[in-house]
């Protein structure tokens, strides 16, 4: 088991390295720079700024310097927020985004698994078509459409929930979490339906029925264990995707999370900020993928035995 994790971590190093390198050169090859602006800046001021942030050095030296800082865990200073380091900005935005992601994921799991299992119990009937049709809509509906729609209905017409903010008013976390989570809920619903359908057609489900088990016990005790493995394997990438993809929702609902800094940084050519966020998020993605893979493997007794025996 440990050897498996170790190998996966080792494989992650080149992946992250490629991400860093590609992002580093891509952002610098985009036209414009961090200190270009509409109003003219004195050439000597611009030169001084560039010198301060080592932008006057040749590209490969900048790259090596960045890697050096990175190996010490230092993501560098932000070009646009003078006096603040990228580490600080990430540190302040992450808890909010992580909380939003967690709520969205919980919502997605609850709704997705329930709908998927429900649909799988009576395949190709109305009980299947209705939740799966809704799931299809959920997958197709972008959050920049769903968010304002929910805002209009629940925030303005019905006036049940606040329309913006995070942690300021009671209930202001509900709409953003639903907006962010619904596409994932839809995807999880489809995964659970497929997983459950496959398991429910297995011979051992017939065995369980032949033993005289009530149907709910057949589903919960015999089918769920195997049926939800694909869902669990999906949770890692899903959580990473939620973190990285939260910027639209954060913008709609005025939430001070990571996503807004990320997008803003791209507009501002804030090189270190873009790089820092990308490196940080790709590390998270690799890490969460690993965790959900390990858990999914652990749930399969056969693979678990191999881990115990072989490594």
């Amino acid at each position, binding site marked *: 088991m440990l050897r498996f994790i170790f190998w996966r971590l080792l494989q992650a190093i080149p992946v992250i390295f490629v991400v860093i390198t590609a992002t580093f050169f891509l952002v610098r090859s985009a036209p414009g720079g961090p200190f270009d602006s509409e109003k003219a800046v004195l050439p000597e001021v611009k030169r001084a700024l560039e010198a301060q942030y080592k932008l006057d050095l040749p590209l490969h030296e900048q790259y090596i310097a960045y890697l050096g800082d990175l190996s010490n865990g230092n993501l560098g200073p932000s070009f646009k927020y003078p006096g603040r380091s990228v580490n600080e900005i990430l540190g302040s935005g992450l808890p909010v985004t992580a909380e939003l992601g967690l709520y969205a994921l919980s919502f997605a799991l609850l709704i997705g698994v329930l709908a998927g299992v429900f649909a799988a119990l009576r395949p190709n009937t109305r009980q299947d078509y209705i939740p799966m049709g809704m799931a299809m809509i959920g997958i197709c509906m972008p959050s920049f459409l769903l968010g304002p729609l929910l805002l209009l209905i629940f925030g303005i017409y019905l006036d049940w929930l606040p329309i913006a903010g995070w942690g300021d008013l009671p209930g202001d976390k509900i709409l953003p979490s639903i907006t962010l989570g619904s596409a994932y809920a839809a995807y999880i619903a489809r995964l659970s339906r497929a997983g459950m359908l496959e398991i429910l057609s297995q011979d*051992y489900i*017939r065995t*369980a*029925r*032949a*033993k005289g088990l009530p149907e709910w016990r057949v589903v919960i005790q015999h089918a769920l*264990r195997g049926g939800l493995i694909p869902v669990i394997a999906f949770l890692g990438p899903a959580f990473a995707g939620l973190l990285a993809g939260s910027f639209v929702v954060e913008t709609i609902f005025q939430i001070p999370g990571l996503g807004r800094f990320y997008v803003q940084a791209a507009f501002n050519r804030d090189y270190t900020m873009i790089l820092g966020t990308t490196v940080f998020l790709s590390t998270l993605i690799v890490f969460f993928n690993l965790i959900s893979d390990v858990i999914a493997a652990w749930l399969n007794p*056969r693979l678990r035995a191999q881990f115990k025996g072989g490594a």
Partner: protein
Amino acid sequence: MSLLNVNDLSVSFVTRNGTTEAVKNVNFTVEPKSITGIIGESGSGKSVSCYALLGLIPQPPGRIDSGTAEFNGRDLLALSQRELRSIRGSDVAMIFQDPMTCLNPYMRIGEQLVEPLLVHGVANKEAATLRAIELLDEVGIQNPEAAMRAYPFEFSGGMRQRVMIAMALITEPKLLIADEPTTALDVTIQAQILRLIKSLQEKRDIGVLFISHDLAVVSDIADHIVVMEKGLVVEQGTPADIFTNAQHPYTQKLLAAIPNGAPPEPENGRDTLITASNLKTYFTSENSDEPVKAVDDVSLSIQRGEVLGLVGESGSGKSTFGRSLLRLTPITDGQISFDGIDVGGLDRNNLKALRRRMQMIFQDPYASLNPRMTVYDTLTEPLLLHKIVARAGLDAAIRELMDNVGLARGFAKKYPHEFSGGQRQRIAIGRALATKPEFIVADEPVSALDVTIQAQILDLLKDLKDECGLTMLFVSHDLAVIRQIADRVAVLYRGKLEEVGNTSNVFNSPQSDYTQRLLAAIPGKSAA
């Protein structure tokens, strides 16, 4: 009074494409303390009639049209689902065909074993666990305490079927329904499981309803045989009646199809086509440093135009040997020479050229055909890959191939799932023959088929061998099949060659202990 009295049972399936009558006005009984065997091909309605009794047919599409099934003074067919559930797994228990898939792979054996007792409120957890351990011991599982904590994958097929039997008997049922319980097992294991069922039945005085497509197996174990064809009971009686005095043509056909024919006469004076010398194929093992010696120092040669039967139980290395000959599995040591060519030393291009001359047919015709390719595409692929025919001549070549393997030409545009098992195996054989090979490895080509279909495919292979001068390595665990088709027989046991000789010699006077045991385990010896 009968334990189970099924009267005028009719079951149909209603789908969009119309109504299929699966079971039509069927009558049979199971007497207490005796075994009733139901025999028929797949699709004959034998399983459906039994599942219908216990409400295990999904409705819809299933529908019970008529009938009564009196068990213990109650009509099973008139009971509600809730009432049926209290009988299922307590008074009536079932065991199924494939022990590899019938146990939940995610639950420990113990957890699954005690479930019937807990769910029917017969015992509490401690008592149920003790009872389960006792029963595991009784069905011949060694170290039952450890087995309770194990997962199904840690057991072989035979062991899992023992666990299934223990699970069925744990509530002391009065009736046991066994649906093809030995079909998926090797012949030696099959004999053990049949003995176990018989002895448990006698000890507990229960009635057994034993479903099988194998007349030889049923005649070994049953007191009363019911023959079903296309949803109808066509004949019933004692095994002796059926064997000596079968009235219905279908029963006579089943009897004739039991592979028992005389072996073909060996021909002499042929040259050697393929030789394996000191062949070793090892696999590295996850759990130990010792490699698994699947094939361990086997030397064998096959004459041109001959069928060599390779027998052994599962795990004996017979499939690995076949695959190694074609270099589908890398060999560890030894030499293979095909028509004077050293197969082991070939590079990719030469190997590809050689592959044309040697082909393989697999056991499971469904799993080995690509479900998204039509018959036409499946047969076209090897023809184009090996440049056997130009595109212009393709249609004619495909027609000829389909004629050869007995497939109607209209089938060319259909997909594998539209065919029956026997037809799929014909497609697979057609694919193997497409390159006009000289040598074919047939790995259990008829094991997944019903006995009558089996006879047709064996006939086809024999015809092809005679017409095309094919040389064949015929791998099978079924001795009766081997006896029918092979010129010579080689017996593998744990990766080593036990015995090789002319078919009649090996069957009539086996030399090694293992071969003798293997032969003694053939079902149907007592009745035939």
